């Protein structure tokens, strides 16, 4: 539940931010009649992403035994790659995103086509949605059932509330800090997922041996207890991790976290001399 909550909160806020920027800009330039086009785009994106998520789930049920495990293992690795890329992308784009989206809206409107606005909303939101579908599918191998869905719904609900606040013009929302901290969380989730992918590949018979296991903390926190499962889905906890898993976890987590936190990726927006545009205002809609 914690996993799906975090994923949907993070991705949901990204989507909410995009929608709030689009609607806020249309409001500012007096084009409120195009609001339905934005929502139609969001609807199209949601439908496509749900279909893809359902497709992954059905495919994994149709496939048989060992093929499923292999499919799951490779999906987990793929999800880690995409998620890592997106965490860095978000960090880099945050500054210029609002400006870029507004430029795209201008382009769409100048073509006089409502369909272009629908398409813009659908592609912007759909990218985040695909990421969510992929991550949720990969994570559902470790957790599942009603709680998993509930966590996701709660995450999206909180994200929607944040979206409303952004639209209402609350410039004081600490969005930069949110993306920074949730980016760290996503990287930690991804490290756990990466470390558990070879277990799936072992179960698929593609890896012959996971290697030696230097310790066993089963009597301390059992992998099948509630706490153990919780820590497993969030941090990748394993009571007796193999050297391969440990190497993947730390070999991924440490350099990626250091790069995410300390590499200067922020693209500085070009500003007219003398204007003091703060980061928060560039994120705010319709400015």
């Amino acid at each position, binding site marked *: *539940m914690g996993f799906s909550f975090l994923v949907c909160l993070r991705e949901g806020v990204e989507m909410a931010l995009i929608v709030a920027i689009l609607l806020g800009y249309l409001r500012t330039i007096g084009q409120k009649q195009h609001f339905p086009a934005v929502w139609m785009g969001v609807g199209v994106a949601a439908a496509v992403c749900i279909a893809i998520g359902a497709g992954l789930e059905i495919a994994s049920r149709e496939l048989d035994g060992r093929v499923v495990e292999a499919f799951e293992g490779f999906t987990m690795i793929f999800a880690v790659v995409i998620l890592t890329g997106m965490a860095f992308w978000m960090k880099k784009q945050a500054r210029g995103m609002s400006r870029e989206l507004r430029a795209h809206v201008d382009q769409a409107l100048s073509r006089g086509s409502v369909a272009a606005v629908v398409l813009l909303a659908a592609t912007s939101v759909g990218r985040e949605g695909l990421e969510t579908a992929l991550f949720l599918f990969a994570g559902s191998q470790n957790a599942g059932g009603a709680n998993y869905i509930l966590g996701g719904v709660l995450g999206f609900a909180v994200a929607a509330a944040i979206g409303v606040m952004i639209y209402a013009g609350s410039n004081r929302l600490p969005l930069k800090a949110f993306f920074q901290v949730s980016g760290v969380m996503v990287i930690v989730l991804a490290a756990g997922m990466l470390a558990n992918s070879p277990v799936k590949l072992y179960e698929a018979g593609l890896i012959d041996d996971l290697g030696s296991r230097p310790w066993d903390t089963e009597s301390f926190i059992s*992998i099948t207890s509630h706490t153990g499962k919780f820590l497993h889905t969030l941090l990748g906890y394993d009571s007796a991790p193999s050297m391969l898993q440990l190497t993947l976890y730390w070999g991924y987590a440490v350099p990626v976290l250091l790069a995410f936190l300390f590499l200067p990726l922020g693209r500085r927006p070009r500003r007219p001399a003398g204007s003091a545009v703060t980061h928060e205002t560039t994120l705010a809609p319709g400015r």
Partner: protein
Amino acid sequence: MSQVAILFGAVAASLSLFAACGGDDADRRVIQITQTNEACTPDAVDLTAGEKVKFEIKNESSKDKEIEGIEGTKLDELLVPAGKTRTLNYTAPGKAGVQKVKCYIPGGATTIISLNVR
């Protein structure tokens, strides 16, 4: 920064709530399952309808062995590392019938354990 602290404090609080949900009950009957290179024993277990048990699975083989419910049996999938012991809680269905558990080395020796629910 105080808003950041509140936002993430709230996230942390709700997550710890999720973690605290539900506890393991201690008075379950313990059923031991031993995994060897060739098979898993026993290959049949008698349970009463609705009974809550704890499987204690000991892997004496040289490979990590998988155990999971099949054909609708609600037993979580678990990989027991070679030489380790792991436990899994299980609640028998309310109706009599045979539930099936697959115990195997991926790509190797497989035992189907029948849970005979009476």
